[in-house]
């Protein structure tokens, strides 16, 4: 058992699934010869050859369009967006073709779209986004956003084996910063199940991706003040694990949602509505959100810091809610 980085865990999943099923192919910009901008796909071309690891021109529409076509033909493509921000270029292919083919023509699209997302790395507005909500709002897709190396590997394998189009967001801040011991043998993590990463009784914090770690950090600080937080990692945004969310709110009666996505239209609003619908009489306080500001991601480091949530902001919000 070795310590494996978040990035390496994803690479292992890709490698293992390509080994296991010859229908799995990779397609994207610079993924083959270059091994990927972040080296996630390093070594795959050498191992599987150019027919299964395809370098493309710079055209996200072409990448996704080709992937959908390959899926129709019985392959299981894993398409990369070099930076997830570029997914806007293939919005139509994803939402009107990938998401609706099975519904409309009975033609399943077993594909995965993956790429590095998120900020905190001074990447500026076009290399730091969290566009998950455009797709969480699209019926027919699945949206996964893991926070740990263990989950990243297990969920990538589940995603590749899923017969639906799955978007797999890899938070670039976590790529090399987090490591974990991974089990030797094969394991899968189910799509659509959230995980309670810390138990508590005073307050529930729901988060995902990089902010999960920030939330856990905040929970440590709060624990020293006598506020025990239950921290839940969503892991999958679509379909959302309503059961785990509602059960926790019924237990602690106070909810704080933290996400790096911008505030308006982020999943926190959706969760707040769900909780009103499913656990209103269990709420002992308003649902509070700690999110990024409603602006593009700043390039200037102090502005980006102001823009993003951090442990201090989470602790301050949690204290207020605990006192309510």
């Amino acid at each position, binding site marked *: 058992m070795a310590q494996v980085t978040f990035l390496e865990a994803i690479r292992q999943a890709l490698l293992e699934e390509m080994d296991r099923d010859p229908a799995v192919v990779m397609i994207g910009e610079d993924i083959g010869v270059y091994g990927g901008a972040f080296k996630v796909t390093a070594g795959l071309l050498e191992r599987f050859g150019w027919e299964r690891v395809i370098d493309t021109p710079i055209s996200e529409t072409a990448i996704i369009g080709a992937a959908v076509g390959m899926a129709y033909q019985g392959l299981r493509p894993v398409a990369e967006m070099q930076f997830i921000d570029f997914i806007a270029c293939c919005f139509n292919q994803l939402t009107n073709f990938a998401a609706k083919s099975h519904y409309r023509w009975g033609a399943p699209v077993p594909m995965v779209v993956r790429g590095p997302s998120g900020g905190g790395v001074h990447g500026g507005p076009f290399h730091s986004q969290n566009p998950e909500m455009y797709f969480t709002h699209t019926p027919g897709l699945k949206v996964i956003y893991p926070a740990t190396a263990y989950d990243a590997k297990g969920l990538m394998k589940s995603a590749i084996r899923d017969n639906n189009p799955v978007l797999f967001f890899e938070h670039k801040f976590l790529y090399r910063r987090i490591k974990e011991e991974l089990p030797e043998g094969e394991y899968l993590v189910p799509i659509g199940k959230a995980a309670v990463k810390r138990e508590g009784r005073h307050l529930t914090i729901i988060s995902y991706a990089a902010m999960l770690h920030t939330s856990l950090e905040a929970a440590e600080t709060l624990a020293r*003040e*006598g*506020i025990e937080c239950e921290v839940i990692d969503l892991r999958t945004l679509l379909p959302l694990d309503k059961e785990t969310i509602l059960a926790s709110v019924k237990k602690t*009666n106070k909810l704080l949602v933290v996400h790096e996505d911008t505030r308006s239209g982020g999943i926190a609003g959706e969760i707040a509505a769900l909780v009103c619908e499913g656990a*209103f*009489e*269990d*709420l*002992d*306080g308003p649902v509070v959100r700690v999110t990024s500001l409603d602006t593009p991601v700043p390039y200037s480091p102090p502005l980006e810091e102001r823009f993003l949530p951090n442990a201090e902001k989470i602790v301050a919000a949690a*204290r*207020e809610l*605990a*006192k*309510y």
Partner: protein
Amino acid sequence: MAVDVIMPQMGESIFEGTITKWLKKPGDKVERDEPLFEISTDKVDAEIPAPAAGVLKEIKVNEGQTVPIQTVVAVIDAAGAATAAAPAKAEAPDVAAKPAAAPAPVAAKGSASTAGAKKDSAAVLAASSPAPAESEAPASAPPPSAPSSDLGSAGGNGKRIHSSPLVRRLARESNIDLSTVSGTGAGGRISKTDIQAAIAGGGAKPVQASGAPAASAAPAPASKPPAGPGAPAAQITIESAVPRERMYFGKYTVQPMSTMRQKIAEHMVASKRVSPHVYSVDEADMTNVAAARAKSKNDFETRYGTKLTFMPFFMRAAVEALRAFPTLNSSIDGTNIILHTDINLGIAVSLENGLIVPVVKNAEEKNFLGLQRSVNDLAERARSKKLKPEEVQEGTFAITNPGIYGGLMGLAVINQPNVAILGIGAIQKRVMVIDDAIAIRSMVYLTLSYDHRVVDGATAHQFIGKLKSVLEEWNEPLV
């Protein structure tokens, strides 16, 4: 209610601003967030919005003047208070009429309804039907004795009770009238712990005092105003010793208590109820200390940039005495005495309309300068309301100095869960007898209030003796 308008800080490195233009004049009405004045700073010129709605009462800084950030530049007379912390305008004169024969007030303090009381009270009271069971309490705390059919959201006279969906459900399930439950949540809201305590107490009666071994694992939280996070372990009613209606006679105005005042009131009652207070007094000759201070004052203040007062001398003496007599640095949990190793000195700070006791943590590890700095910093932030919750918690012994306002001695109430508090009187020159000769010395009376459950007279007097000897034999250089 007066709202201060301050010179804002427009950027991290900006420390002053110049008023370039007032957009309103005294007497003008302002809306909240409406532009009120324009400023110019090193980095930016800006239009500053009004922090509250109301009437601009006074401009304190004129156009063209430059002042440091946080300076109060104007005052707004804010229309109608919205929070529980602000006392309501007295609506009492409307209702000075005799209250109906009110049954003794039940647990209800109606602090939960304080938040909603303001605008409602005059209208509601004017309209209230003279049902015999209903009493017309002016302004803030109506105990509705008539059980109302709606247990949840409205009190007996229609005031809105602040709680939450969860609390209302629990109240409904346990058949508890929310207007009889006192709220300790934000703004006087009835929180989950309040309703659970009410349910555990077998109905509307709140659970009695601290001091009993806690059933839950949570340690008893610091019960000082303003309350930090964590639930209070008990709720105490503020009782009257005579029937309420006997207090309303002749002309009067009614001032509802601010949240801080309520908490002080509750704490004092609880402290006296729980700890049998005994007082020991001694006097200390402060001549040496006064001389040391006079000698080093300028040097100290120039070198360290902080005022040199008498307080760190008393703090140091307290640390030495607590080291020698650790029982006075303890708390009582049922039949267990918790002897604290840390010496965290609470220093009482008087505030406008209240008091607060910020804590200097680990005073035993600080040198003289450290003690002085800590106490000056905490006092300043206490007055400017910038204390953090952890800074008013975990005190193990307290010191109060009412003598700075005059008076020979102060016999203070113990700050729970401590077992003792030191009161310091005014430092005055008195005629003393030394070696059978008359001498003029600077003297101070030291009063120790202590909890006789664990501190006996002998220990207390030895403790004071130790304080006295540290002060009288002061030989530590200050600078």
